[in-house]
């Protein structure tokens, strides 16, 4: 039997299905940014952007771009009716103070204990892209991760017993959405709650370094 991994937009769309009306949500850079495109307009979800935007809306039409309004990826956005602006210390009080119902981050790796690694591939790498990830990871009421199940290069698994890359935070991830499956992080480790059509338990386990649980 064959299977077809979800593309990045489809992962984002899958996550959007699980975000209920009324949640206050921060979306990280990468796959998570696309999630808001799949939340229907009549479902009121408030998106936070850590540069101080509460109520971030979709990209503007090209003739409506305002250079004074960007998101955390410095992309041009709009403000939803009811939205507001705060300064950076207040914006991170939102992130660190437990006011976000959900944060969705991209990652290099997630461990079965809920550890996340998403800012550097090696301790001495000159790329040090911490940004707001460490604050969001420890502060949101729930942290979900969106990422491909395996690496593009050698097909190594991003679903780990222990992270091999420098940690962003320990024991914080609640759920992982990959191109192959949805996994809950439980006290026993990864619990598979959903697989894409055509994927088998054996096939998913082969692509996961950590042991998977099924019930």
């Amino acid at each position: 039997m064959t299977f077809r991994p979800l593309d990045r937009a489809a992962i984002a769309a899958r996550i959007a299905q699980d975000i209920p009306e009324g949640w206050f949500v921060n979306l990280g850079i990468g796959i998570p940014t696309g999630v808001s495109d799949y939340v229907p307009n009549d479902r009121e979800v408030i998106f936070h952007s850590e540069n101080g935007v509460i109520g971030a809306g979709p990209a503007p039409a090209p003739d409506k771009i305002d250079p004074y309004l960007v998101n955390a990826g410095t992309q041009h956005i709009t403000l939803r009716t009811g939205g507001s602006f705060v300064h950076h210390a207040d914006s991170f009080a939102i992130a660190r103070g437990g006011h976000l119902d959900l944060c969705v981050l991209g990652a290099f790796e997630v461990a079965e204990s809920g550890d996340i690694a998403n800012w550097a591939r090696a301790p001495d790498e000159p790329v040090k892209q911490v940004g707001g990830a460490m604050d969001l990871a420890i502060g949101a009421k729930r942290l979900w991760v969106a990422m491909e199940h395996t690496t593009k290069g050698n097909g190594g698994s991003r679903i780990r017993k222990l992270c091999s890359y420098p940690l962003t935070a320990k024991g914080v991830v609640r759920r992982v959405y990959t191109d192959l499956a949805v996994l809950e992080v439980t006290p026993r480790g990864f619990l598979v709650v959903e697989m894409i059509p055509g994927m088998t338990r054996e096939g998913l386990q082969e692509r996961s370094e950590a042991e998977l649980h099924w019930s």
Partner: protein
Amino acid sequence: MIDKFVPDVAAALAGIADGSVILLPGFGNGMAETLAAGLIAQGARNLTLVANSGGRDTGPVADILASGHVARLICSFVRADSVAGRLFGAAKLELEIVPQGTLAERLRAAGAGISAFYTPTGADTLLAEGRETRIIDGRNCLLEYPLPGDVALCDAWEADRWGNLTHRQSARNFNPVMAMAAKMTIVQTRHVIALGDIPPENVHTPGVFVHRVVHVPA
């Protein structure tokens, strides 16, 4: 009469000393580009620059770093493919990476007279190596100290002669918190407003945190 307006950029930046800690707000917008360019011309050296990001190949942060006037950069984010990444790689720039929320809070603490604080942010990471941590309420936390500046170079949309400011949309970002964290806060404003014409409820950064203002029309 209190009047914080100065006639030009040179007057705004006069007296910035070698070795100063410079706070530079901005996140995609809200950066005082004219003051940043003026800082290079002003010529102070051996600076510590505090900004959210290390910037790219061009732009105000990259230009300041490329001038060679900065010894140390404190920021949350550095791209490999940037002036900052290359200078750090060549050991020509000291780098302190601070999580963005910790950066904002250390600035706030400096402005608010908070001597130190603990936060779980970064406590279980490489950034905590060799530093003081403590379990608080069952959670590992990292001790963080205030980050005061000698000078903040801020951006405003509107300013009056008392230095009361508004910031447009997401251009607010680090401007209010860096304004309160510096001994000398210098502002470039797009618009000059008569005292009293910014509705008091709408002042984003009160003039008590501002020392000099220069008008830089768009």
